[in-house]
């Protein structure tokens, strides 16, 4: 373990960008927890007398069409956006790794079936599939999470399958089997934990992608319901105001969105370096 820590320190000092990503992550998580308490205004309260004001001391990020404080909305939205991303990724991770590791461990028809199903999903234009799911089931928060989860499952399933497949016949697995463990136990306790590191990289990258996906759904009108603040919707709404010069409505939520995705992407990179030292020289 100390070896790992030392390696972690090495990676972080060697790669300051990863350090920045960790800092960003900390910032986002804190914001998600305390956001509603530190927001200077009620994110839902309208004030039509002060609509479309550029950034001022009272409203650092300006106000939107209905006079709502953009800073407060951006801050409060953090929790929801992270929750959507986490929820979707957790679901697809769980489903994908279960399916994938079963396929990889048992092989045979389980493997063929899972592979076929995953190939089918992959053959879809993924964003259009997500759109279709949300449009068909209705644009509720849960459905946005499900849709995002479904389109991510194949990535985890394929990865888990490959990783489990490699380890299926490893010595320590045979040992576990000979010790009388059932296949479920061997898979869950002995094989799968060893596959976790590479999958964590995927999780991190996917978090960013999930946020982007939710934002894109919002852009075409399939996002969370108004007046709930959410970055994607705010960017989509603000986009209409860009030509008329009210750049702040789209810019600030857009920056937050970018920052969050950026953070998860860099984190994914950093984790990869941490987990797979061979990739580095």
């Amino acid at each position, binding site marked *: 373990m100390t070896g790992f820590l030392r390696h972690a320190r090495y990676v972080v000092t060697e790669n300051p960008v990863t350090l920045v990503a960790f800092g960003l992550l900390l910032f986002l998580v804190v914001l998600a927890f305390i956001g509603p308490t530190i927001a200077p205004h009620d994110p839902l309260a309208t004030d039509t007398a002060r609509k479309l004001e550029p950034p001022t001391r009272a409203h650092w990020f300006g106000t939107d069409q209905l006079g709502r404080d953009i800073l407060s909305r951006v801050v409060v939205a953090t929790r929801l956006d992270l929750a959507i991303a986490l929820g979707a990724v957790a679901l697809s991770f769980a489903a994908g790794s279960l399916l994938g590791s079963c396929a990889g461990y048992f092989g045979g028809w389980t493997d063929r079936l899972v592979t076929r199903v995953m190939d*089918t999903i992959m053959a879809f*234009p993924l964003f259009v*599939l997500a759109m279709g799911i949300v*449009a068909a089931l209705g644009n509720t928060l849960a459905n946005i999470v499900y849709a995002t989860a479904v389109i991510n499952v194949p990535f985890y399933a394929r990865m888990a399958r490959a990783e489990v497949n490699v380890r299926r016949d490893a010595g320590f697995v045979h040992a576990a089997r000979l010790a009388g463990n059932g296949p479920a136990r061997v898979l869950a306790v002995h094989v799968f934990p060893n596959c976790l590191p590479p999958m964590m990289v995927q999780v991190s990258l996917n978090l960013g992608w999930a946020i982007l996906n939710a934002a*894109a759904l919002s852009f075409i009108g399939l996002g969370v319901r108004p007046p709930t603040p959410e970055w994607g919707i705010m960017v989509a709404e603000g986009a209409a105001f860009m030509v008329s010069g009210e750049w702040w409505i789209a810019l600030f939520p857009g920056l937050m969105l970018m920052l969050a995705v*950026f953070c998860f992407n860099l984190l994914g990179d950093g984790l990869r370096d941490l987990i797979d030292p061979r990739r580095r*020289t």
Partner: protein
Amino acid sequence: MRLVGRRLALAIPGLVGVVVVTFLLNRALPGDPAAFFAGPAATKQAIDEIRVKLGLDRSLPEQFLYYVRDLGRGNLGTSLTTGQSVVSDLVQRLPASLELTLAGLALAVGVALPVGVFAATRPGSWIDHVARVVTTTGVSLPVFFTGLLLVYVFYYLLGWAPAPLGRLDAFASAPRTITGFFTIDALLTGQPATAGAAVRQLVLPAVTLGIFAMAPIARMTRAAMLGVLSSDFIRTARAAGLASRTVLFTYAFRNAMLPVVTLLGMIFSFLLGANVLVEKVFAWPGIGSYALEALIASDYAPVQGFVLVMATIYVLLNLAIDVLYGVIDPRVRIEA
């Protein structure tokens, strides 16, 4: 060749799955196309008449059978939104999407490959970090946001780019269709001015897509190059005193291309899907914006047609990558 055939046969169950899922998903869409297209003042009776006309009064399995039968005849149905047959709509629009996607991908590759190689030769340097931050920023921006921002800055504020009016500005006429790519067709028919106009329209949307595609390509190139550069045969080559340029480009680059090509295939099909939003922003008459409009109108046939075409492209692309593998690295042979 036999192997290619076998691969294609294997892809068929996947395509069947796509057909079934799209069909069901479409039917689950909340809208009632009959009510939507019966016009603003429709009575219940008028809507029922239209339902019969559209064949929506039949049971679901029956509708599916009719759909499959038509599919077998190469008939993808008629779009209610454009009033045209889906096949002719797709044939007309697919080149637009392909042209845009290929241009975006070419831009991304043009920038990301050198960046990746460069970063790999100096890992850990500030250039490496900058490259990483910049490319990652690109992939962190929602494409529609990038697109709108580019339009705002380069068209509205600076006036450098032409109006986001689709493939050609309104006063130029499209070249005769040969490949369907306006730039190429215009050059083939000897209309450099039209080709220029087409390229100018192409720049902003292609850059929008390119920005998004840069990061994964750069990242993969860097990783692959690093892997190859630390391998034994490169060390041997270096030790043998070969010039570092030769080592880098002749030996390392060629070997690092393998994973990059795989990734390019994936990115291409991903971009073709991500096009949906870019096409909407730039009024690009491709299949993405077509599918989007249709989905919003609960217009089944175009959505089904779009998904089917995309799935087919995906399957063919994967096949092409496998074949390409064999070309780049003769040791790899297609396995069924």
